[in-house]
């Protein structure tokens, strides 16, 4: 066997040391594997449980056959418990009181407009936006019922499926809405932030606090070796956690994954680059575990949760806040994840996300390298 070069031997020795520390510290394992699964299950099932049966008001102003048949289709959905009403005012009262989560109104000319070839038929769907998840279900299930119904109808009549009916869902009280298929990919971004920034924010600081950094610096170790030995093990840990997340998302939560694994690995790697860079930068600068963790919480975790578009839609934020989101790597990662999970490969959409992730990875890793000194002062 060819002997290793001294530099490579040092890097391997340090990485091995770091890996032992990860494996022997139960908190790293909990953060890397248990926490992600919990997070996914919370987001996945909390939404699922809500959705089993929603009370939706219904007002049919149409006297025709088509209206009655659509009403029957709605009533047949296992997600919707249809509550018939006499007037629009009655529906509004019920909604305000929280007895129904939304309502559907068929206009008087519904049958006539459906039957007219090439024309559009308006259906009004109103949802209670104060509970955005539920509101989204009202809209999407109604839409789903409509879709099935019109496809079925077209099939029966041997017509093309595009009946040209125009659905206009409107969410009252809160224009934003969220679905599970958005949430689960988004929560992967949170998990990567926790591992990349929060966990690594502790590791360099820990070496300073325990005095091991001084001992390392008095050996021939170089700055690059020192940094790589911190990045590589945590990168591997991050990728492993991401795969666990993916497995849980696809197999347990039935979230569709339409993109390629390679794309997912690529964009996770880029994001981990910036998260690890930020974590190490904070750790290197503060040299104190408590301060580093506080800083990571504020600089990485909170922005990733609040400003990445993962929970709160960016489009609905005030303009100055919206401007800030452009500076947050998690925003691009969440967007890329949602694209990869739901749409598969959409070149131009992903390209800009990847570009920004690459830039921020370079920025944070570069800053860390710049801030890492071989001396104490």
């Amino acid at each position, binding site marked *: 066997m060819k*002997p290793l070069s001294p530099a490579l031997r040092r890097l391997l*020795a340090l990485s091995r040391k770091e890996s*032992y520390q990860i494996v022997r510290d139960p908190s790293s394992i909990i953060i890397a594997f248990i926490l992600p699964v919990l997070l996914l299950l919370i987001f996945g099932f909390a939404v699922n449980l809500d959705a089993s049966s929603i009370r939706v008001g219904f007002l049919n102003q149409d006297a025709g056959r088509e209206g009655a048949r659509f009403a029957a289709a709605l009533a047949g959905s296992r997600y919707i418990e249809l509550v018939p009403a006499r007037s629009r005012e009655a529906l509004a009262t019920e909604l305000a009181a929280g007895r129904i989560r939304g309502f559907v109104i068929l206009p008087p000319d519904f049958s006539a407009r459906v039957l007219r070839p090439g024309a559009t038929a308006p259906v009004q769907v109103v949802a209670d936006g104060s509970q955005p998840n539920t509101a989204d279900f009202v809209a999407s299930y109604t839409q789903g019922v409509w879709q099935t119904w019109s496809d079925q109808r077209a099939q029966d009549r041997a017509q093309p499926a595009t009946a040209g009916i125009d659905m206009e869902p409107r969410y009252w009280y809160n224009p934003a809405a969220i679905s599970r298929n958005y949430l689960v990919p988004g929560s992967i971004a949170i998990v990567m932030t926790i591992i990349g920034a929060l966990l690594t924010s502790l590791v360099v600081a820990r070496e300073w606090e325990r*005095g091991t950094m001084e001992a390392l610096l008095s050996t021939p170790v170089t700055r690059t070796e020192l940094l790589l030995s911190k990045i590589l093990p945590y990168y591997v840990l991050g990728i492993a956690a991401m795969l666990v997340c993916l497995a849980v998302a696809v197999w347990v939560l039935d979230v569709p994954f339409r993109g390629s694994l390679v794309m997912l690995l690529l964009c996770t790697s880029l994001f981990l680059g910036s998260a690890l860079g930020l974590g190490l930068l904070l750790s290197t600068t503060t040299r104190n575990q408590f301060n580093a963790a506080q800083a990571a919480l504020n600089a990485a975790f909170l922005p990733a949760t609040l400003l990445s578009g993962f929970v709160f839609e960016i489009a609905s934020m005030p303009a100055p806040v919206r401007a800030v989101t452009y500076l947050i790597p998690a925003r691009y990662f969440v967007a890329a994840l949602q694209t990869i999970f739901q749409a598969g490969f959409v070149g131009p959409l992903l390209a800009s996300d990847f570009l920004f992730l690459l830039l921020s990875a370079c920025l944070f890793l570069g800053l860390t390298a710049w801030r890492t000194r071989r*001396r104490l002062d």
Partner: protein
Amino acid sequence: MTDSVSSAPAAIELDHVGYRFGTTVALDDVVASLPAGVITGLVGPDAAGKTTLIRLMAGMLKPATGHIRVGGLDPIADGGRLRAVLGYMPQRFGLYEDLSVQENLDLYADLQGVVGPERQRQYQRLLEFTALAPFTARIAGALSGGMKQKLGLACVLLGRPRILLLDEPSVGVDPISRRELWRIVSNLAGEGITVLWSTSYLDEAERCAHVLLMHAGRLAFSGRPQVLANRVTGRTWTLAEPPGGPRAALDRVRRAPAVLDAVIQGSRLRLVTRAGAGSLTVSTLGLESGTLAPVAPRLEDAFIDILGGGPSPDSSLAALLAPVTLPGATATAVIEADALTKRFGSFTATNQISFRVPQGEIFGLLGPNGAGKSTTFKMLCGLLLPTAGSARILGLDLRREATRARQRLGYMAQKFSLYTTLTVAQNLTFFSGVYGVKGAEQARKIAAMVEAFGLESHLQDAAGDLPLGYKQRLALACALMHDPAILFLDEPTSGVDPVTRREFWTHINGLVQKGVTVLITTHFMDEAEYCDRIGLVYRGELIATGTPDALKDQARGAQHPDPTMEDAFIALVERHDAAHPERAAA
């Protein structure tokens, strides 16, 4: 001052070296040359600049002024070449506590490029050297303090350094391991390796070939320790059978114009006279009886001489306090530990510790870090519940009446436990308030403490910014706000300079004369001399109790005609281990 007698070639040259942290001057114009192939002791109290000086030599810091040459190399400019010949062991050596002994060795061997057959040779040599061979699979965090230091040393020695910088290697190490560590390092010096050994224990420096004495960022002395001790030759005495006991006599002796410094040493006093004071008699001391005898000078005597003598002999604090009166029932023993046992999982921190302390006594728990002193202490203040046995304060069982007991108890924790961001005044108000001192009584009490401890000019300063001596005064003031009958002191003077330590003990002696009972923990052998009685704690057991003199008597023999407290400790531990061979192996 510099001793020009040192003629060996210099391994390390310090040429007008200075360093500052922001505006604080950490080192000021240090000029010294360290001889090659011997152990140089770098000695001084905490914050004297020892660590900064070592870091400068190791190339970890860049000097603000001056030049350093280590083995002929500049630590910054020739950093790469220096690291090949330099071994640097920082304070609390950077071992990875979650890695095993062997994994730590492997890591440092890889980092220092020690490979192939050479690596096995080094492992064998160092494991034998440090007697760590049976423990290679043990996780470093589970090693004793002494073993950790030996492993740290082994990791540094893997690269076969020619120059070895050791920053406080004996901190947290029991006296036996400390001697062993010293033996190992002496052998290295015998092989021609240059060693710098930093320490806050002056007695350790006495064994070095060369000494650098630091104080407040300045080099107070550089040269052979004998030369330093010679400053006070003919001026050091002991006074046996002092009239009225050592504590009362100390008070009087320190007022004698000829006396520069006086401390209690068991039942005797140790005195240093002023330069030119001439021969000492009992009457020049202002005493009516006692037996004076000259003794060999120590480095601490010389250090006190350099610093200009001990502190004022008056404790204005004691004058302020009313005598402690206790109900008759508790007069026999105010502190009682009865078979105190504490287990943390499978680890026994203390095993069947029993002792009684009568009113007005200073009782010291002496032992290395991790021996079980603090655990015993915490059970006696009701902060920890004993697994078995009982603890009583003034007859109150801490299991049931901890709150009532604590009301009569003052506690000064290690490193002072002050609120560093609060001002002196706020700390005093807070601590008095916590003990239920309120209203006019509180104001009166605070004013009295401020006056007694001379805190007036610092009232609005943040406690964290105070000089060490003032921090200590403030911590003591806070512990005394509620007129406690018992005072618990946890390592109160570790790392402080000798003058500050003497000032502290002046206050404690004053309190004891008012009837306060004091329980103190220390790993500092010298400090034990101030106690009336000592309990030696070793691996969770109280292996001996007695007056300092009685304990020292037990170690007296051909090898140690005049044993120190440390000799006594080692002898008693060895005797204990011989009697319990099964526990000694652990």
